[in-house]
């Protein structure tokens, strides 16, 4: 088995054994979205109007929640040192951890999104668009987040710093992700938001693992 597959499998084992982390993300997603429903009030038309944006914005915040721990635990217990010395290319190691993060957090958001959207009165014709856009957008969130998590490693109040660093980078994903869902709601669906989301994914896939690996090496010094 390659180093990439070994690290991925171990990360998933660790995630399964501490499944509380994933449940926290889903619970946060559901509660944050329901705050909007309560805040806007019982007007179902307004809720339906804002639902695509709200689902995306809260999914984004939920993804951010778990990012702080992406490298922090391995940094604190010395695992990161050992991973850097294991002979595996650091960018491949980062990518394995990012894929594991997406398989736990991103997929959990995908599964929970329809229920959350239902609570926000998202029109029925937009659900497939929501799932497709989230499937294409959430890997980018994990990749960009890995760079932020690596850069803020070891910093005091790293969590706040991480949000300030990563949330602005999430804006393009939010805009085009919400646009994809909005198009389906209004019945004017086009492929262009998906094309942009796909482009963002390819771009972050080619840049983020190397950027995060460089930031991690710097943090270890």
């Amino acid at each position, binding site marked *: *088995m390659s*180093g990439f597959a*070994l*690290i991925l499998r*171990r990360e998933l*084992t*660790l995630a399964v*054994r*501490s499944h509380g982390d994933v449940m926290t993300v889903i619970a946060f997603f559901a509660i944050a979205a329901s705050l909007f429903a309560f805040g806007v009030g019982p007007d179902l038309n307004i809720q339906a109007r804002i639902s695509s944006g709200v689902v995306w914005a809260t999914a984004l915040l939920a993804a951010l929640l778990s990012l702080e721990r992406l490298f922090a635990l391995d940094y*604190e*217990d*010395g*695992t990161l*040192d*050992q991973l*850097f*010395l*294991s*002979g*595996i*290319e*650091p960018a491949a190691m980062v990518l394995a951890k990012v894929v594991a993060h997406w398989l736990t957090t991103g997929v959990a958001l995908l599964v929970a999104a329809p229920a959350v959207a239902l609570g926000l009165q998202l029109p029925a014709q937009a659900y497939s668009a929501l799932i497709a856009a989230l499937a294409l957008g959430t890997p980018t969130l994990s990749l960009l987040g890995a760079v932020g998590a690596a850069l803020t490693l070891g910093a005091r109040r790293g969590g706040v710093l991480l949000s300030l660093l990563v949330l602005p980078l999430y804006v393009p994903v939010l805009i085009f992700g919400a646009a994809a869902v909005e198009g389906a709601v209004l019945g004017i669906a086009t492929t262009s938001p998906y094309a942009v989301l796909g482009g963002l994914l390819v771009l972050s896939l080619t840049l983020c693992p190397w950027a995060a690996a460089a930031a991690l090496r710097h943090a*270890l*010094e």
Partner: protein
Amino acid sequence: MADLHFAPADFSGTDLACRRGGRIVFASLSFRLRSGEALVLRGPNGSGKTTLLRLMAGLARPLSGRLCWNGAAVADDLPAHGARLGFAGHLDAVKPALSVRENLAFWARLRGAGEAAVVRALAAFGLAHLAEVPGRVLSAGQRHRVALARVALSEAALWLLDEPANTLDEAALGALKAALAAQLGRGGMIVMASHGESLLPNAATLDLRSAAPAREAA
């Protein structure tokens, strides 16, 4: 493992200097190590023993000077350098949610060592009866033994150990001495930071006080 023997190699550092937190920790430090040789780092707290070990591992970068393996600069291929060394620092890298065996098996597979190497390392460090115990219930000394077992099973040519005798009991100390002797016997190298009595009586000593920067007049 018994038939393993390392090809002759040469690990050297020339004119190394390192800075931490804006302060020069050591300067103009040189060393040279050949197959089957060991080097013991000595010096008071803060003299840079840990820093030098991390520098030798390629985890930290020197301010100046160069590290070479068989004449080739270590910095040119850090993953390859990492693959030929085993490192046990102050942190034990034991995952609380994984059993001792799972902890070790991951690192063994990552380095291409087989299941047999894990069993041998567990036995060598008196961990066999703890193999299925999760990392979270281990004592500090037991966790440290897992870290040393990871180095032993790595089949690495160079061992970098930071105060390996810390928190070890009599039996584990004996196991460590045996592992060190075996490593030198098969042509491996050891660099070890140590305070107390030497685990390697015949090893060369590098006193970091000799490389401390001259104190500036206040």
